[in-house]
């Protein structure tokens, strides 16, 4: 087992927190409470990224998910009427629920299969923590984005452009 005892404790605490919050998100009846638990979940996952040594991903997680996605969720909730949503009775069993459960089980089995059957290679890539520290992790990411993954970098912008266009078309339909 790699990593110090401290890291393992933090990992398990955050993992349980993330799972607990995920459960709370889907079981709360008040949508804003769900949203707040979602934020805590994002923070827990950000800490796990930190444990993996990727600061920038952790920061991006907090900034994009806990910041931006959260605001989208909040506006979505305000778009619907909370009072009406509360009055909708809980459906006991629906096709969607059954399908969802089957999908979740399939995904879980798949993960388990992947972990059990094929042992993780445990190979060390070219970007070791020492090398990242020497150049600075963020600068390494930037350098790669500008050279090796330039196409992906530009495509990200294209994807987001298409996203905005789609959103505008959908929301502006009535005019």
């Amino acid at each position, binding site marked *: 087992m790699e990593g110090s005892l401290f890291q393992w404790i933090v990992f398990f605490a955050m993992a349980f927190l993330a799972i607990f919050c995920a459960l709370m998100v889907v079981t709360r009846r008040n949508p804003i409470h769900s949203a707040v638990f979602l934020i805590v979940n994002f923070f827990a996952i950000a*800490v796990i990224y930190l444990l993996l040594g990727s600061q920038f991903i952790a920061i991006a997680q907090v*900034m994009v998910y806990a910041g*931006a996605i959260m*605001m989208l969720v909040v506006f979505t909730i*305000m778009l619907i009427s909370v009072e009406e949503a509360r009055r909708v009775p809980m459906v006991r069993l629906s096709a969607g629920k059954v399908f969802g459960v089957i999908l979740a089980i399939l995904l879980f089995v798949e993960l388990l299969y992947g972990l059990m059957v094929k042992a993780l290679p445990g190979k060390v890539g070219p970007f070791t923590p020492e090398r990242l520290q020497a150049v600075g992790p963020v600068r390494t990411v*930037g350098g790669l984005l500008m050279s090796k993954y330039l196409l992906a970098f530009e495509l990200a*912008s294209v994807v987001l452009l298409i996203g905005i266009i789609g959103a505008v078309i959908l929301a502006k339909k009535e005019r």
Partner: protein
Amino acid sequence: METTLRDFAFVLAFAVLAILFALIAVLIPRFIAPRTVGLKTESIYECGMDPFGSAWIRYAALFYLYALIFIAFDVDVLYLFPVATSYVRGGNPEEFIALLVFVLLLVLAIAYAWGKGVFRWKYEGR
């Protein structure tokens, strides 16, 4: 790795202190502040009238659109931060071209939303 974790241990310590401090600040008045119980003490403030209707009203879809555009921009700008840290002074003009294309695509997005009238509010007229 160790330094990263220690950096964020500082952040965590400060965050915890912030919450602890706020908690103490809220708890102190419990012991020294007066308590009153009146007919309207615990009611919502609506300028003296009795509150009516629900406060949780629905908001215009326009806000939703603003939020969507914000997400796209937020992600885009976040990509630019690592690029900015590795941006070399002088030489390597390809980097500038890449940046130009990226930002122009963003400009296109805002121009599209502008043209489609996302930023136009109803009472503004045409």
